[in-house]
């Protein structure tokens, strides 16, 4: 209902929790003056499932499926972060082929996440068609991952100690074909989207994040790289098999939405490079560490392991008290930090800009709510 008061020139507008462009159940409480936003306040928690508490009541393996449901778009990175933390805790070493398979599948998953973002983001900007092209590509990718992991979205593929399923020839040839195909598709996206005047006008100089703000709000992922800081866990704290591959961290310079868009598209290209190299160098050998105990019962201790997901730094902090269940698991999720900058970016913009900015953050709301 509209409530105008005579003293105040502003009114509130509820964007969400059911709104076409809040991507799930995010609610943004806006204080508006005409079409301009004077204050924006994200309200989170509508998708809270208590993953961290669930962890305290399950043993180490039982929690594995939960990780995929925190960020369902880049589930394999969450699998990886959690598995690596548990491996650290127990002292397991993953064989090299296992690491390579992890990298290949996680990078494919990163591409699928970015493709979905690309389509959904352009949908936010009012372009309907790109999302179907993105889904067409993504469909190929999901079929590939389906073959190996057995699921299409909420993967539960990695295990502490390695991976349970080896790559087959069909997957390898299929992936190579996909890499080739996606490279040609990037040209289409460039022509359709990146060179579009309306798209450039909507995104250029909108939602600019300075480098100081990045640090202040603890942003990670494409958000911080769009502002020109080459911070990527895969390079800065290399894990898994990443040090063996030649890839660059794409960065933007201004930190506006366009930069973040470009960074994500370039990241997909880099992921393709990593996948190609990994397939070329794929070593033979076991995929699972030997002597993985049937019952994971780590000694007392604490570990923290960070990985780079499509949205930024995911950190898994496990406190063990020598039980079969973790004493406490803290999941550091990138979207929570990334969303926290929204109130500052939203001030003095239009509703249309808010939608554009919110989309460029690439939030996965269940990840924030956990």
């Amino acid at each position, binding site marked *: *209902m509209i409530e105008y008061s005579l003293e105040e020139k502003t009114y509130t507008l509820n964007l969400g929790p059911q709104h076409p*462009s809040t991507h799930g159940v995010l609610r943004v409480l806006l204080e508006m003056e005409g079409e301009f936003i004077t204050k924006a306040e994200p309200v989170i928690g509508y998708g809270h499932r208590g993953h961290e508490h669930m962890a305290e009541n399950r043993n180490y393996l039982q929690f594995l499926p939960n990780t995929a449901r925190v960020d369902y778009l880049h589930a394999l990175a969450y699998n990886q972060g959690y598995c690596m933390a548990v491996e650290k805790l127990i002292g397991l070493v993953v064989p090299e082929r296992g690491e390579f398979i992890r990298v290949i599948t996680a990078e494919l998953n990163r591409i699928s996440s970015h493709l979905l973002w690309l389509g959904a983001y*352009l949908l936010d*900007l009012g372009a309907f*068609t790109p999302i179907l092209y993105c889904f067409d590509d993504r469909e190929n990718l999901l079929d590939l991952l389906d073959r190996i992991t057995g699921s299409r979205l909420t993967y539960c593929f990695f295990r502490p100690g390695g991976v349970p399923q080896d790559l087959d020839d069909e997957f390898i040839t299929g992936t190579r074909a996909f890499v080739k195909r996606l490279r040609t598709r990037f040209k289409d996206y460039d022509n359709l989207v990146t060179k*579009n005047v309306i798209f450039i006008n*909507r995104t250029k100089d909108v939602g600019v994040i300075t480098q100081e703000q990045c640090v202040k709000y603890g942003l990670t992922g494409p958000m911080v790289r769009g502002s020109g800081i080459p911070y990527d866990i895969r390079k800065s704290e290399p894990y898994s098999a990443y040090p063996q591959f030649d890839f660059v961290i794409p960065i933007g310079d201004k930190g506006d939405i366009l930069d973040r868009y470009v960074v994500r598209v370039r990241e997909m290209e880099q992921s393709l490079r990593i996948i190609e190299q990994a397939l070329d160098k794929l070593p033979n050998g076991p995929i699972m560490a030997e002597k993985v105990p049937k019952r994971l019962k780590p000694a007392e201790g604490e570990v923290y392991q960070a990985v780079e997901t499509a949205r930024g730094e995911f950190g898994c902090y496990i406190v063990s008290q020598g039980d079969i269940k973790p004493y406490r698991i803290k999941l550091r999720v990138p979207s929570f930090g990334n969303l926290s900058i929204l109130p500052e970016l939203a001030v003095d913009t239009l509703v*249309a800009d808010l939608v554009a900015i919110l989309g460029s953050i690439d939030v996965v709301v269940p990840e924030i709510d956990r």
Partner: protein
Amino acid sequence: MELLAQFLGSAGARMLVGLIAVIALVSVNALFLIWMERKVAAHMQLRPGPMEVGPHGAIQTVADALKLMGKELITPDEVDKPIFWLAPIVVFLPVLLSFLVVPFSQSWIIRDMNVGIILILAFSTLAVLAILMAGWASNNKYAVFGAIRSVAQNIAYEIPLLITVMSIILMVGSFKLSDIVAAQSQYWYVLLQPLAFIIYITCATAETNRAPFDLPEAESELVAGFHTEYSGMRFALFFLAEYTNMFIVSAIATVLFLGGWHGPFLPGVIWFLLKVYALIFLMMWFRWTFPRVRFDQLITFAWKILIPLAFANLLITALVLKLR
């Protein structure tokens, strides 16, 4: 045949038959256009679109229309009831009346008025009023947003549109639509006035609230804009009006720039409809290709670029006509 011709000769009968024909045309046209839109969108998006009801889903929209008719007309508690109920009718009637003067062919005009073009433009402006009524009466912030945007947008785009129409009128020297078409028997005005044509199409897209100028109903921002609170047949009337409006603006463009019914071999009516649907296809193509512009950019574009361009075009037209 002769009797029929005699009967049709009388003005009253002509109006009556014309109105019935128009209502039939409007309904069939809207049903066809919605199906066409879905098919065009689908094929641009690598999918087949509706396929189940009828051959290639041809009567899918009939099924949709029946569904909408069967739906409950929800009137939310806090709305301004009379205006809320009136708005869908007000949006629909003017577009219906516009058909009275559209020259489908030399003889297929219900009433060939000497102020035809002015009548159409005046009626198509009335749609804004209905949108404002709908948005305001809905008592919903998103609806008010949509309505306000719609008014600002329509005022901004009406001006360049009228000016481009003016430059054609200057060349013909008549407001009569049949005269304008008749003047193009040699060459179409799109060749003489390409700039005016481009401005007209841009403005027409904005006038009909189509993407990339679909700000009044921008769903990623305003949920559904001014018709957020409407359901059932009332919502369908807005839809019907939108698609009929597309037909009207394309028909005007055909008359002004594409030589109306002129064309070789085929009868005039067929040529006219072909051109109209080609233009509608163009508008659909826009919608499924472009992202949406931002509201302030939209207004800036109209006032700072389109209006000066349209004025320049009008001045040059006048100058050339004078010097010739």
